[in-house]
């Protein structure tokens, strides 16, 4: 490339015209196949365009990639698991190689999960990668959402993609719940039992819903196959479809970028897909997959054999859902019992219904409509392709931090029993702390965040006006001291 004249050898080659090398046999074959396809599809034009497409570079743009790759790892390992998992609540007597459970009556779902873990070579590693990548998927997705929120990337023209992302986030946790409920061990069965209790509190239709979902009285034998069909077919189809739309819109609208020299609202500065992004993003998939494998190799997750088969009259202490369901579970722990009312002989369980059935959709609806609310309040109808630093939008950053605080209070509340034991504290005191904290801490977080943002803005302005502090103290001939400031802003 003529723009890199700094290579010393380049001076010698100046003016040389490289001979056109004849393509090798392999390249001619590839070219022939590509030509055959292009004759029939005309794909050369869009593919050529995509290869030169430019993506801006920043570590925070990697978060969505982690989510995407974790999802792909989930799909891949999940397909493997279907070869051995038996989605049936039918009874069987376990006779596999895990001795403590031999001879125990259990469901075929649980027995086959034990087989995957103990009798199928490499089964456990696939199962553990699957579970870890599911957790990673949702963690990465949430942090990606933080990035998009705090930098204002959801602003016009990207509101639709934000809404799609919100639906994806909700589907991901439903998918996760359906997945970890499948093994039918004591812990997952307790989760399904709680879910049954939640649905049953829906006003008017609760009992009918429960009998529809479970195909009769709880637990029945229908819930495992139904969760299975939701987990491997219905929800993944929606996830993949919406994800394709999500990434398609990123291509169409071009990625946002952080402001900087040469980066404007009217351009995208970065590296082209071919070869840099293909190598970086492609390589990153292998890194995500590799790290998930490493975690799955050394850190045990969900040891279902330790819990035993599901029995509705048994339970283990410290029963916890996977982390992403924690906030809803925490809400249930905080809602006091007096919120249950009897009206004309009908029971309205406001101690359960809001936390169990309303909270989840509510959180994601509020998330989904946020860009429209913000636009309505600010009246900002311009297109934005440059990202904001969180400090430069103090109110939004404050709202975000308040929301994260409220969510965290609920999440921590779902571990109140574990905390009480580990910290030697009273569970009642902890519960009260969280109950009060849910109302007090978010406004506090808003106020503190906003003040910090404004202070950081002032510091930025100070730097712009006076340059950077150098730490060099200068004494003038008349005895005054001042600090030398550096005019370089970078």
């Amino acid at each position: 490339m003529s723009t890199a004249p700094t290579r010393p050898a380049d001076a010698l080659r100046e003016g040389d015209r490289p001979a056109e090398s004849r393509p090798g046999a392999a390249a001619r074959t590839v070219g022939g196949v590509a030509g055959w396809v292009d004759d029939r599809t005309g794909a050369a034009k869009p593919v050529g365009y995509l290869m030169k497409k430019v993506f801006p570079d920043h570590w925070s743009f990697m978060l969505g990639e982690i989510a995407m790759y974790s999802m792909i790892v989930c799909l891949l390992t999940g397909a493997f698991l279907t070869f051995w998992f038996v989605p049936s609540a039918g009874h069987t007597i376990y006779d596999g190689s895990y001795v403590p459970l031999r001879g125990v009556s259990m469901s075929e779902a649980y027995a086959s999960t034990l087989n995957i873990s103990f009798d199928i070579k490499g089964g456990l590693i696939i199962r553990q990668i699957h579970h870890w990548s599911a957790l990673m998927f949702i963690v990465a997705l949430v942090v990606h959402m933080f990035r998009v929120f705090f930098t204002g990337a959801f602003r016009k023209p990207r509101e639709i993609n934000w809404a799609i992302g919100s639906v994806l986030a909700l589907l991901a946790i439903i998918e996760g719940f359906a997945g970890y409920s499948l093994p039918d061990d004591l812990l997952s069965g307790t989760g399904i039992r709680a879910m049954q209790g939640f649905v049953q509190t829906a006003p008017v239709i609760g009992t009918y819903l429960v009998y529809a979902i479970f195909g009769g009285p709880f637990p029945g034998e229908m819930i495992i196959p139904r969760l299975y069909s939701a987990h491997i077919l219905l929800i993944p189809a929606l996830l993949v479809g919406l994800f394709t739309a999500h990434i398609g819109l990123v291509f169409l609208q071009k990625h946002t970028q952080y402001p900087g020299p040469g980066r404007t609202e009217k351009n995208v500065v970065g590296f082209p897909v071919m070869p840099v992004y293909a190598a970086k993003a492609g390589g990153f998939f292998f890194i995500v997959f590799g790290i998930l494998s490493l975690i799955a190799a050394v850190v045990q997750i969900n040891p279902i054999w330790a819990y035993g088969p599901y029995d509705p009259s048994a339970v283990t202490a410290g029963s916890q859902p996977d982390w992403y369901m924690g906030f809803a579970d925490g809400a249930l722990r905080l809602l006091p019992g007096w919120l249950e009312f009897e009206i004309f002989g009908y029971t309205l369980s406001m101690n359960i219904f809001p936390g169990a059935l309303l909270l989840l959709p509510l959180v994601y609806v509020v998330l989904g409509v946020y860009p429209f609310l913000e636009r309505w309040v600010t009246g900002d109808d311009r297109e934005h392709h440059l990202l904001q630093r969180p400090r430069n939008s103090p109110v939004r950053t404050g709202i975000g931090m308040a929301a994260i605080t409220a969510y965290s209070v609920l999440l921590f509340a779902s571990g109140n029993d574990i905390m009480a034991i580990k910290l030697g504290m009273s569970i009642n005191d902890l519960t009260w702390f969280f109950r009060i904290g849910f109302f007090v801490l978010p406004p506090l977080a808003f106020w503190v965040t906003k003040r910090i943002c404004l202070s950081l803005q002032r510091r930025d302005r100070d730097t712009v006006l006076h340059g950077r502090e150098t730490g060099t103290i200068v004494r003038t001939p008349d005895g005054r001291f001042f600090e030398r400031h550096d005019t370089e802003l970078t």
Partner: protein
Amino acid sequence: MNEQDTPTHGSEVGPTGHGTAVRLDQGHIIGDGGIPERFSNPGLPVHVPRAADLDEDAARRAEKQVTTLFGISILGTLLFIVLYFLIDVEETIYVPGIGVTSASNLALGVTLALALLGIGFGAIHWAKTLMPDHEMVEERHPLRATDESRDRVVHEMREGGNSSQLTRRPFLKYTLGGALGLFAVPLVLQVAGSLGPMPQKSLSLTFWHGGPSGPGQEPEFKPLRLMRDPENTPVRADEVTVGSVYHILPEGLLDLEEGVLEEKAKAAVLLVRLQEDEIQSEKQLDWGYQGIVAYSKICTHVGCPVGLYEQVTHHLLCPCHQSTFDVTRDCEVIFGPAKRSLPQLKITVDDEGYLVSEQPFAEAVGPSYWERGQ
């Protein structure tokens, strides 16, 4: 709200300073408020060549690093294949920091990770050291289509409506709308209608009513012995010492051919013996037998088994959401999200001294539901 969006005029922060954070007469440089109206775009920064751009040795080193990483990946793959056949699935291994773990899981996971990470780090190192690092600039174009394109869409839609005579013959429109609006109803009806049976009375009945209590079943009451779970043996009143706890199921439940879990989910009972003078409720004393009391084990919150009994305080704690019930006060809720007491099962002893139910639960057990009080 957004201080940086307002253009920074020099006059705004005058040299006199009026309590703002930044004063222009302070500090060393400029100090005259000569801030430009807008900062001009300095353009892309100068490209800084990397070591491998300038020095062939550095480039060769980078190449060596990348090929080593790819080599590690190949090695990982080969090791995976070897270890897959070499290590038996049942073998365990002690690893410091992890404990005893499945040898095959550890070996396969680590080698797979090597195979994957080698490719990943190799590719990225290649991109960072040897692939071009010149940033490219791509122009953005407005997403909005041109006015002509928009008008054409509107025009084609109108034209389509006119030429299909939809606008001239409105009944076409109404009936088509109706048909399209309704055609999904049969499909929805099939699913919604056939997913499960009607609950009927099954949520308010339990096996203690005299037998299986699924939808459509209405067992006739007979006294049932209290059986230990899982031994399935009856309990004599004189065996129950003060402070002991039993998991109880009704006689016959564990002998069922089918529906065991469904009945268990409603009929599970905890049996506790208290000192009679500890019991603070007259009804509780009456419904028990010499201080032996039986309570539904299914939490009135969302139905987890109330599994934790504190002998000293006589508190029952649900491990799911920490509802706490006081056994000395008729299992009232003393803390947590549940509203209702655990229902008590009225018990007595039969001729042979075994504990039996005297009547079924007087109310529905388990989590609340809308028509519970009916």
